[in-house]
């Protein structure tokens, strides 16, 4: 069975921008990556067109 994540994801509460307008299914969010590790040149949404993107929001606490 494939595991979604090899990491034990922390269960907790979001603290960053919890009140911001949420994306809905069907939306095409635009986002940029400024401080990111292992980007291989990806700077945002446009660079990732052509493959599925799974964005996982996690926490350290």
């Amino acid at each position, binding site marked *: 069975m494939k595991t979604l994540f090899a990491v034990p994801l922390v269960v907790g509460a979001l603290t960053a921008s919890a009140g911001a307008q949420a*994306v809905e299914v069907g939306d095409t969010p635009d986002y940029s990556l400024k401080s990111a590790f292992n980007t291989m*040149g990806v700077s945002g949404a446009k660079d990732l067109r052509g493959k599925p993107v*799974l964005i996982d929001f996690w926490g*350290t606490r």
Partner: protein
Amino acid sequence: MQQEYGDAIQVIFVESQNSGYQESVGFAMGYGWMGTNAIWTSDYLFSTGSNGLPNFALLSPSGEVVLKGNSNAMHGQIEEAIEEMIKNGGAAPEEAPSAVKKGYAEFLEGKWAKAHDRLSKAAEKAKTDEERKYAEDGIKALEDRLKSQVKRVTWLAENGYPERAEELAESLQKGSKGADALVEQTTALSEVLASEDFQKELAAAKDLNKAESKLFEDAKDAKAADKVLEVVEDHLGTKVALRAQELAEFAKAVPGRK
């Protein structure tokens, strides 16, 4: 999942409790979560509407949100959705003729010349203006994507990933053979790869890859971080050395470091 599907998908982990970039990457490194193609960031990207963690948004190849929710609770649905998207081959519009969809699938697999030929023929043989537009949009998408991949080779070479630059350049050149307009874009890459500086970067990358593997196996071991710092000293002046320096900085932020 990034490991399972490799380059067919992109996973982005977004730390969402204001831990900061250095700390969150160090945290992930300490748990041994590095060593795949996943991207790690603490940048704010967007809200999914969920206040609980972990939560996710799954985007299609055309960038549209197809699923969102609790990552743990929807594990099976996420896998099914990803497999379906990979099977369907990518960013072609749903209503596009099958020849155009095949063309999109081919260029996403790196078969640039074949895809260009298929899409060009689809445009020539189109029975309606709508069909022709799908094919022409496909050709434009292919050319845009090839341009961005060529830029990516330069980025990889200039940011301390010479072996990936070499691999991608060779793949682009191989896939473009036979389509003159595309070959023009990829030929210039040979000059980048042949330079003396690039060869020095490759030598540095070989050493960093060994040190990096050890570090990702046990980031809490200070000796592993020291090995990365040796790469910095041995290959001073290279882009790889700069990358090694950054890696060593993240290793300092690993909790519980011995």
